[in-house]
């Protein structure tokens, strides 16, 4: 086969990778290309080079999820919250919902690693999870007697949990539909966006909407999103122990020894 045909095949696989709702189990050509990637090292190199040209990285070519891309900071292809949430005031809530959905779907760190784990989230429980975390912070703030005000004229200095708490989780409307500015409605919009892009699967309407995770979501959260955000938090000087115990906890509790056993 000529070089040009190889290149065309690599680009074809790249194009399949962009169709995030598609898995190679549903498309024979996609499946052939994924199979070829796994055995043909030259082809794999070609694919990586082609992806690099798009400012993308190939996170994985996975037997379950197919081709999974990651974005580099330079790329034009990264999706942002602004694309699917039009209201500026709603965006922090929506971005937080992205994290909360992942956090609930992979509540235990080992769930992220377990290939067989299918996370199951509902809109209501995602909201409750953040809400309870916020309540705990509220309680702690009340105990330390911390002032709860925000400097005038600088509304973005409000702590995120307070911003979350101010927004009502639900609000009544004339009909039984959700109020578009309520937290549940925003979380639902995020979940629907993820479902449209092949990251979640719709699994019913209970509790405001139930979703299960896909392999692709697991890989992207594990390999890219989680690590990246952890790094950024560390850069801000906020480090939290691997056992999940926040550093501000009482010093009496020692973390169990040898948690850093894994890779």
């Amino acid at each position, binding site marked *: 086969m000529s070089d040009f045909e190889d290149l065309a095949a690599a680009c074809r696989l790249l194009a399949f990778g962009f169709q995030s709702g598609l898995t190679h189990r549903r498309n024979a050509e996609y499946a052939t290309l994924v199979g070829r990637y796994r055995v043909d090292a030259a082809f794999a190199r070609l694919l990586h080079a082609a992806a690099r040209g798009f400012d993308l990285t190939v996170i994985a070519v996975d037997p379950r999820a197919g081709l999974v891309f990651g974005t580099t900071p330079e790329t034009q292809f990264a999706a942002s919250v602004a694309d699917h949430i039009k209201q500026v005031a709603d965006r922090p809530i929506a971005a937080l919902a992205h994290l909360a959905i992942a956090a609930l779907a992979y509540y235990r760190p*080992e769930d992220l690693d377990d290939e067989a784990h299918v996370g199951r989230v509902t809109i209501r429980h995602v909201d409750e999870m953040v809400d309870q975390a916020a309540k705990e912070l509220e309680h702690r703030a009340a105990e330390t007697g911390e002032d709860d005000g925000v400097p005038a004229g600088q509304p973005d200095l409000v*702590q*995120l949990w*307070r911003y979350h708490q101010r927004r009502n989780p639900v*609000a009544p409307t004339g009909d039984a539909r959700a109020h578009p500015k309520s937290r549940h409605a925003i979380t639902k919009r995020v979940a629907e966006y993820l479902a449209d892009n092949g990251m979640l699967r719709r699994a019913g309407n209970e509790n405001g909407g139930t979703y299960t995770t896909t392999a692709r979501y697991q890989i992207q*959260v594990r390999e890219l999103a989680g690590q990246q955000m952890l790094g950024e938090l560390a850069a801000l000087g906020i480090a939290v122990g691997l056992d999940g115990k926040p550093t501000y*906890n009482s010093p009496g509790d020692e973390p169990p020894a040898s948690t850093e056993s894994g890779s």
Partner: protein
Amino acid sequence: MSEAHRPSRDTLGLATRVKALAVADPVLDLERRKPLLTSRDWGGYQMEELALTAIDTVTLKMDFEDGARHEDVVTAVIRVAELQMPARGLDEHTDVARWILDSLVNVGTVDRDFSHMYGLVLDGTYVSHEFSFKLLREVVGPDGRPRLRASNEAIAMLVGAVDIDIASEQVAADAKLEALVRRGRLADAHRAAEMALRRTVQYAEYIRTRLEGMRRDVRSVDWVRDVRRIQTEALEHIEDRINAESVIKDNLVRMMDNSTEEATPAQAAELIAILEKCLRRHATLQANLQEVGEKFRAEQERQIFVPPPSRSYVDLAHQLLDPVLELSLRQAFPLLEGFAGAATPPRRPAVVYLPDLITGLMTLPDEQDSEDGLIIEPEFGGAEDAPVFSDDQYTAVESLLARADGIRLSALLKAARRPGSCNTDHLLALQVLGLFGAPRHDAEHRTTLAALADNEELDDEVFAGNDLLVVRSPIVNGLEGEA
């Protein structure tokens, strides 16, 4: 902690009092806004009383798990509105009640928050701060529909103070009630008893929020230091309250039995009812508190006794979600946006193809006339076609033709052109032309009237062509006449 500097203290002691005043403002504001609703004549309602009724209803209806339903609150407010303005209809009372409820929830703002400015002295300089609060908070009920809970600020407003130790206030309320009952001042005691009931609700709310943190994450609370202390304190406090309130109740029962006055037994019965409500709420709280240990162990089992992580992946909830909630919006949003971007697949941007762009820019915008403009219904008048010839002219022509037999068109035209009959010649010419194409059968006289052409030129001022000969011929039978 994210707060690097020392938490700012309210050195002047003013901020607390400003906040206490601020929470009353939304209620007072209702009365101020009332005359501004020019379309409605709601001047006669006392809005503050209605608002307090709404908050009161929510406070008393909410229990440990559930909130108050919107309809219940509206109903309670309508009842008071009816007392204030009995002349007005139920529809208006409902409107007023909904307006009150919407205003207290602060419908129409994004956050549904009220805010108020106050100042703090930080290192010798005065800094303005914004205090945000809610009066009625909308939460999710067990069926997923919205419920209302009164905020701490709202309950504090009802009982008339903020930022106080709730447990000691409750002791004080009971002591006051006890003193009033002992001296037989039951009218005053009624109000004191209601205050005591609200304190009870407030205390239950306080305990509930403290226990919720534990339910979420047992690792963030210390059993000995936090939970057991709360539990013991609260149980002791409730036991004291139950005892104190039972004593008051016993006193009241005795008073009711020995009373000679008319009014006292009824007043005492009301007081007993309120005290029983207090006692019931205490009992619920007590039951909840006694389960705390069990719940803690169950949560501990669920949360802690799981196998340790096999590989060092990120613990999303504890390593990411918890810390980021503590950051300010300014710091947190870029991080969250990064996470959202990384956790979603790359999107294909819409690529602009230059010729398409140029065509798109050159195309004139569509005329938007169908949806936007007012559609005017055309009105159709009764316009009829004006007949060219009048009935008189028809009769004149008919009479001419009736007599015609072997007469030429020119002669007929001359007969038709009598003075005073304009256009009759036109009608005649048309009729004769018709006879040329289609002879007219007269069934009555069994004759056929027809016009024949015989190469005679018509010499006329108006018409040209053959000078037709109009003839009448008898019909032998229909077919022959045609031929």
